[in-house]
């Protein structure tokens, strides 16, 4: 009833290709941003901000980055965590060597370094395809983790090989409480999400999708494969690097290279596939699923059983329920949560009078 586009005519290509072509979508987007920027900070407590929303947003950004590569450009990567590590360690090192640098510049530098490394490890994608390509990114994963563990220069010679983020100040405000951290991460993530969304509907984005669908055909119609694939690696790794810097600076504060291990890479890949490949909202939905569901199950488990069953049993049941949920969602809707969301919207168009 409310979600209907009848009467909204597009009179130019430009309008037809807008980010949010439907009026109601625009309202929904504004409402959601208002909700995130105003309502949540008003009502959420520190626990929610610091240990659920901030990590959720940081990992969503990493998932967004991977979605550029895997979802839009069709290149599988199992090295996301390594690119995050590059971002974290590069930002840290820039700030340690030159303390005057504002942290946002350090973040950008982290992202750029990650982009460089990503392009380097993306080079084999010109020759290797499909699951075989995963090996290049896995090589990145293990090599970079090893590099940061073994060369003390990267951790500024800290005895135990951890890095501790310097304090952050922005325009005189210290970013040290959960609320300010939330605002910082949210702003960065929102900017990046719009950036990706825009990129995806540009010439570059269309080239990525052509390469994803069939790269030989794409090459035949004049798309420069090298440029397109490497650009995807670069943009994706940039976002992952940024997410890594956020993870180190904002979420944990103190990080060892093992925080960016292969398990993290897999986790982010799961977010992208479960959320929905090739969609911005999918990255957020997937991250929400992967982060919130285990915590929810953990809480529910202790709440329902009230201590009558051993915590160990609950933990194992959580694993099973989590796995079953993934399979269930796939059978219901194989194209991820984002697709479910889209179907919901289609239904909403006809509501309350479906034919």
């Amino acid at each position, binding site marked *: 009833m409310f979600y209907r586009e009848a009467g909204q005519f597009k009179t130019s290509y430009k309008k037809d290709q807008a980010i949010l072509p439907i009026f109601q979508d625009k309202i929904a987007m504004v409402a959601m941003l208002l909700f995130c920027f105003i309502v949540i900070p008003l009502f959420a407590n520190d626990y929610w901000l610091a240990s659920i929303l901030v990590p959720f947003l940081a990992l969503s950004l990493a998932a967004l980055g991977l979605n550029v590569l895997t979802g839009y450009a069709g290149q599988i990567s199992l090295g996301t965590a390594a690119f995050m590590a590059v971002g974290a360690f590069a930002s840290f090192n820039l700030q340690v060597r030159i303390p005057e640098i504002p942290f946002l510049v350090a973040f950008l530098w982290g992202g750029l370094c990650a982009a460089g490394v990503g392009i380097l490890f993306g080079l*084999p994608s010109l*020759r*290797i*395809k499909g*699951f*075989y390509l*995963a*090996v*290049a990114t*896995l*090589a990145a994963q*293990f*090599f970079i*983790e*090893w590099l940061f*563990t*073994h*060369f003390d220069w990267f951790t500024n010679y800290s005895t135990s090989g951890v890095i501790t983020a310097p304090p952050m100040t922005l325009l005189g405000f210290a970013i040290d409480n959960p609320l300010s951290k939330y605002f910082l991460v949210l702003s960065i993530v929102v900017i990046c999400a719009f950036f990706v969304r825009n990129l995806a509907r540009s010439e570059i984005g269309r080239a990525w999708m052509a390469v994803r669908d*069939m790269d*030989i*055909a794409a090459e*035949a119609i004049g798309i420069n494969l090298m440029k397109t694939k490497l650009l995807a690696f670069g943009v994706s790794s940039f976002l992952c690097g940024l997410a890594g810097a956020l993870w180190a600076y904002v979420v944990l504060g103190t990080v060892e290279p093992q925080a960016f291990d*292969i398990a993290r890479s897999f986790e982010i890949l*799961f977010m992208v*596939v*479960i959320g929905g*490949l090739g969609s911005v909202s999918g990255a957020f939905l997937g991250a929400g699923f992967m982060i919130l569901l285990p915590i929810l199950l953990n809480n529910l488990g202790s709440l329902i059983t009230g201590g009558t069953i051993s915590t*160990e*049993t609950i933990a*194992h*049941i*959580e*694993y*099973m*329920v*989590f*796995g*079953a*949920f*993934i*399979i269930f969602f*796939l*059978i219901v809707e*194989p*194209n991820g949560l984002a697709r479910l969301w889209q179907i919901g919207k289609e239904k909403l168009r006809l509501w309350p009078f479906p034919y």
Partner: protein
Amino acid sequence: MDWWFFLEVFVGGLLSGVMYSLVALGFVLIFKASGVFNFAQGAMVLFAALTFVRLLEMGIPMLAAIGVTMVIMVILAIAIERIVLRPLVNQDLIILFMATIGLNYFIEGMAQLVWDSKVHVLDLGIDEYDAFEIGEAFINKFDVYAALIAGGLVLVLSLFFRYTVIGRALRAVADDHQAALSVGIPLRTIWIYVWSTAGIVALVAGIVWGSKLGVQFAISSVALKAIPVLIIGGFTSVPGAILGGLIVGCGEKLAEVYLGGFVGGAIENWFPYMLALLVLMIRPEGIFGEKIIERV
């Protein structure tokens, strides 16, 4: 240079490599028959090994325990086909891959819920510390037996794929689900066959690794060791898994011993991947992989 020592590292590497191949085989079988990268293979190794060791602890004789575990793995395969694969026929491969992620969590939870999450000692009655002494080099007997088991398994499986009707049907299914269905190949039965076989291979890998490491949760992570093996050998080749294992095992051991010292050691984790990358640059489908032919 100490040549005896070199020999020991070399042979030790080859034998380690065969242990990786055992795990890689499970991946190859499922990939070959359904084009799915089965993320749950590690969990299946854990489940099979735990089942086996708990049955042994209940006092069931070893052969009977192997038999019962095999039956359980077949039941698991049937359940997977019924509940997970059947509703997902003809979906994208990435979606089947995702389903195996869910399966991985489920089996890991189930294995530890049904049995438990302690360390279990698995004693096969083979002395693990006995070695053949060749000159000044020690070649561990246990590793040699494990390698023989793996070699035998590979031989049987390659023959099976090459010469039996089911084997050929498997290859047809791998090429195209729908085309295979249309020429009358029973897809469901084939999937049950292949997942059962993968389950049994998982049991063998579980027994060998379990007696080396003790049966515990950590053995599910041997799957990570299998990935470079798969890539070098090719996802679709059974003998490739063995050859890939040999290359990876001996490459990483030689690298760790002779190069590791120069860069601070512990390079075993990434070296196989760099090696695999090098192989792929020359042959993008792995050494034994089927040639990828692309048409527009």
